[in-house]
């Protein structure tokens, strides 16, 4: 591997270029017409303008990106996150052109991209799933029997449904039959199908994910977990590690479950196995596996000292995982805050515009991954991430205190950002005592 095309933009493109430099790999950046002033163009050894501003005509244009890779004689493509990172057919096309796709095989991407297939696979390797019925019911007696075996509270969902119609929560057996009838007739009226599917209802869950890594020599390991419970409409805003709610044995169990799946499917490269966690019962359930590097990977890097992107490049080149035999050690506490061009006072509306002032903090144990600069115009075509502020402390308390200090010395003007939101969360009693859940931002921040 000599030259890597980076099929992405923004902070992750810069992050990948940095890892390539460490390994003395040459880099080719690609960019759209909207990104003429984007920093990854200057950071790479070479840059190729691949298309017009809309992502579909540039960063998602598989043919243009492959052509750029071939014409510039790249022997590998790093897809970053988002865009083409989880498109199985793109990984396959790279392979067909004898270009190394820095990620898992097309088969692994496809398997985990199909939610039903991913659930079946997880089950096969003993990873716990949210208990649910195999099929759907129209008969209340059969449904009641199934409900008993799943356990209460039960979520009733219309098989054909969506948008909350035909959905009910039965807290106990006494209320089940009545709610089933309601849900079924509502589903019949709305979708022409009264079939109801049952699932254990898990309220107020936390989002916990495990960083995993596999190599081409059959080894699979975990690099511990990240807790991403502060999110808004499934968009993560704050990630931290280790999770403040896991005890030692649950932590081992969730990490081992993730490794079982990774090893079971012979996964190669960096991946993340996502779970929901019920702090009340200490149970965790598989949601999905992301077959790419995650936005929040620096949390793991701060805790373990591992450069995950360098490791990705090495593994893609066929090398063995560089981690010690006993596994990777995690020390201290790390918190990542996503600084987005969004206005928290207006329902987190995206706020493109020009950064009149931009002075990120420079402090010990604070890392800032970003592609923007003073005078930079945030285009409206792509995501709103301006940068990621990652803070390390010997424990959670110190990491939080340092994060607040970093926020206080952060100056950004010209566009609305999530800086003020982060300060509110970091000083909120619910965050401090780790009682937040994945719907917490929506309920706590009225405008959210």
């Amino acid at each position, binding site marked *: 591997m000599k030259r890597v095309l980076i099929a992405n933009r923004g902070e992750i493109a*810069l*992050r990948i*270029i*940095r890892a390539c*430099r*460490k390994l003395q790999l*040459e880099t080719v*950046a690609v960019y*759209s*017409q909207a990104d*003429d*002033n984007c*920093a990854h*163009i*200057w*950071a*790479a*050894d*070479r*840059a*190729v*303008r*691949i*298309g*017009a501003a809309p992502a579909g005509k*540039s960063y998602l244009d598989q*043919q*243009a990106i*492959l*052509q*750029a890779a*071939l*014409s*510039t004689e790249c022997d590998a493509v790093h897809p970053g996150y988002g865009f083409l990172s989880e498109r199985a057919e793109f990984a396959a096309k790279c392979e067909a052109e004898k270009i190394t796709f820095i990620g898992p095989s097309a088969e692994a991407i496809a398997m985990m991209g199909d939610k039903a297939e991913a659930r079946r696979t997880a089950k096969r390797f003993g990873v716990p799933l949210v208990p649910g019925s195999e099929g759907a019911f129209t008969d209340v007696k059969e449904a009641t029997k199934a409900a008993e075996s799943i356990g209460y509270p039960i979520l009733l969902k219309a098989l054909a449904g969506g948008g909350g119609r035909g959905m009910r929560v039965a807290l106990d057996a006494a209320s089940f039959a009545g709610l089933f009838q309601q849900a079924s007739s509502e589903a019949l009226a709305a979708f022409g199908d009264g079939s109801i599917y049952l699932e254990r209802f898990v309220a107020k869950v936390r989002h916990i994910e495990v960083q995993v890594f596999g190599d081409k020599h059959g080894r699979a390991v975990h690099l511990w977990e990240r807790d991403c419970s502060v999110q808004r409409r499934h968009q993560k805003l704050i990630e931290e590690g280790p999770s403040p709610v896991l005890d030692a044995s649950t932590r081992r169990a969730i990490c081992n479950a993730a490794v079982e799946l990774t090893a079971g499917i012979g996964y190669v490269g960096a991946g993340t196995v996502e779970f929901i966690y019920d702090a009340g019962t200490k149970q965790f359930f598989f949601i999905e596996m992301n077959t790419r590097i995650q936005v929040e990977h*620096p949390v793991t890097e701060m805790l373990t000292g591992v*450069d995950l992107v360098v490791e990705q490049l090495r593994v893609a080149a066929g090398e063995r995982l560089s981690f010690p035999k006993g596994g990777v050690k995690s020390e201290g506490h790390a918190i990542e805050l996503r600084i987005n061009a969004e206005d928290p006072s207006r329902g987190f509306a995206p706020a493109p515009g020009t950064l009149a002032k931009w002075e*990120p903090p*420079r402090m010990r144990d604070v*890392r*800032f*991954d*970003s*592609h*923007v*600069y*003073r*005078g*930079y115009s945030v285009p409206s075509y792509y995501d709103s991430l301006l*940068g990621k502020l*990652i803070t390390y402390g010997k424990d959670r308390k110190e990491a939080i205190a340092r994060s607040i200090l970093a926020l206080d010395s952060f100056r950004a003007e010209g566009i609305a950002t999530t800086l003020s939101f982060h300060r509110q969360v970091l000083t909120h009693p619910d965050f401090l005592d780790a009682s937040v859940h994945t719907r917490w931002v929506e309920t706590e921040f009225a405008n959210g």
Partner: protein
Amino acid sequence: MPLTYKDVAEILKIIDASGLDEISIEVDGAKMHVRRAGRGSAPEPLPPMAGPAPSPVRATPAARAAQEPARPKAAPATAAPQSSQHSIRAPMLGSFYRAPSPKDPPFVEVGSLVKRGDPLCLIEVMKLFTTISADTDGQIAQILPANGDLVEFDQILFLIESA
């Protein structure tokens, strides 16, 4: 008295009519800095990144080109068309071919007279060939890429002297 949009437009007109390359104006604390397109200056510093300091960029021609200052709307090319000239730009990234096949003569040469709709070149993207045609009548004044070059999106391919 703050500068209005109209003021700024007026100032730009005055500068445009002058022979200046670069000018700074300060009025009541409002600063304005104007530079003609295409003149070099240092780009904004890269945002700080964690980790070891990056090694210096290898100075390939492309890297040098990329380090030129931000030029909005500047295609990754080349000559600026004169006012009477019409430019044909690449509608996509790809390999630029001047002839329908290696055995055939080029579609056009410098000096060729073309009519709107005449084929000028092919662009290949992953074995898919697109014919690029003239969108005006005129005479080919310049052919910018060489046969087989990678052309980037919106790069100028031909300059046509309008008929």
